[in-house]
């Protein structure tokens, strides 16, 4: 059954796939982070959607969707200390981009089986555009790089989904990357 992007169900499917492929993710190592994915609305998507993804040990342990009026910025702490076992609610960073950008990235993953060189998360965030990385705590920001391969492989699981999008028009952004 197809799953629509963006939706909580889409991230739930990724979460389940990650669990099903636990051995592969165990090899990549511990991933302990919570971050937000923000899909901003525009012509093709009426509303902005924000999802909070929590990872612990080798798994994605929780997927939440924020209410329309809530901002993930309030969950960015400037001075969180990474002491073991803390239960403080916080996120490390926010990945924010217009819907069209996420759609192109996911279409590329579907088409190629995984993100090609022009569509890796690092490539899409490096210039601060088309995907913005928002953070207050640089140590939280650095978790994006500490878990780089796990996060990339999490997105790459989209290739296994029967994926449909909030709009039907194909997207080809005018983005050129090295």
């Amino acid at each position, binding site marked *: 059954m197809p799953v629509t992007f963006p939706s909580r169900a889409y991230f739930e499917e990724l979460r389940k796939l990650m669990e099903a492929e636990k051995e592969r993710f165990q090899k990549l190592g*511990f991933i302990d982070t919570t971050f937000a994915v923000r899909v901003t609305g525009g012509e093709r998507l009426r509303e902005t959607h924000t999802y909070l993804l929590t990872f612990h040990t080798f798994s994605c342990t929780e997927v939440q969707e924020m209410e329309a009026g809530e901002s993930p910025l309030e969950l960015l702490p400037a001075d969180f*200390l990474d002491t*073991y076992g803390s239960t403080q609610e916080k996120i490390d960073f926010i990945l924010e981009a217009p819907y069209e950008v996420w759609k192109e990235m996911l279409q590329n993953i579907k088409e190629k089986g995984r993100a090609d060189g022009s569509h890796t998360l690092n490539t899409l965030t490096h210039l601060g555009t088309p995907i913005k990385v928002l953070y207050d705590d640089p140590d939280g920001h*650095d978790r994006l790089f*500490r878990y780089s391969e796990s996060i990339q492989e999490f997105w790459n699981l989209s290739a296994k989904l029967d994926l449909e999008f909030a709009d039907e028009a194909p997207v080809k952004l005018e983005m050129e990357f090295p």
Partner: protein
Amino acid sequence: MAYYGTESFLENRDFTDRLRAILHGDLGLEWLKPPGKEVCCEVAAKRFSYADVDVGESGYSTLSPYLRGHRSLAPRGARKAGDFPDFQPMVNDRDEVWSYNVVPLYEEAKTRQWNATTDIPWQDLDRWELPPEIEAAFCQLCTFLTEVEMIATDLPAKWLGRVHPDLLEAQSFLCTQAMDEARHTEVFRKRALAGGGLFKSSSVAEHSLKAILEADTFSEASAFLHVLGEGAVLSLFRHSEFIAPTEVDKKIFRLVMQDEARHVSYGTLHLKWLLDHRPERREAIHQILDLGENFIQGALSDPANTEALIILGGKGTSKKCLEQGIEFTKLLTRQRIEEYFQRCARAGLAERRGRSRLGELLALVGG
């Protein structure tokens, strides 16, 4: 042989007689005194970490900042009786190596190890036919990284045996860093030799490496290496993933950046720990960063490497390509310096931005 101990056991009649008695069933069982009551710990289902055994007097949370008393390898929490040798640790001060996150980082580091021999799809490299100038530029970058990465093994390795054994969690993390950086040297050397070969080494960079190794204290070395040096290299790895000419090379940079970010995180929150607990060290840290910024700037501005980055960023040597490459390289410099100031502020050294001369470089690259 430099050490002969305190006696010859083979010639000690009492020692041999005691062993003989034990082997005839005359056990003394002096060791069988139960340890203190606070030794039980909960075994977590998924991950049984050093944090789970942080209990009672054997835990790290109750460590004194000043490690007085024994200077032996006796396990923290074990009963000590007898004439232990003095291993002469130089770092007997918890705050000199401790970090807010050293325990979770050690656990993370063990699980995120990878293998440069088998985890890189080397066999796919020939799917890409690169223009000679691109392959040469990439190999120049790999030559530089091969040359500089092993210092981040040498530095923790130099200090490991000098750290008091009661600081074992910090020692253990430093062991993982030593392994990480050996792997980085390996992966860049292999990539260069699998392609266009090793190009020009950098005497400028090596002065920087020597300065890191010669820092007077561990904390000063850490501020120089982890916060300043590896912070800069982390930016370079991310940039290199962005401009890498093949997906094999992108994979290499995604893997090395994970390790590097862990070291930066340790260094940042070690510096914070140090400044929180030893505010009098602030000026010494500033002084090493004054020197270090100069060295790192030299190393990262080596013409061969700067030019290689420009060619890779622009994907060629035409005027248009070079202009694009220069813009990307300026961006790397701005990002590197800005994120360094952010990490300094996170560690409690916000005034670094005003004191540093890197602002002059920022102006040069349009920051």
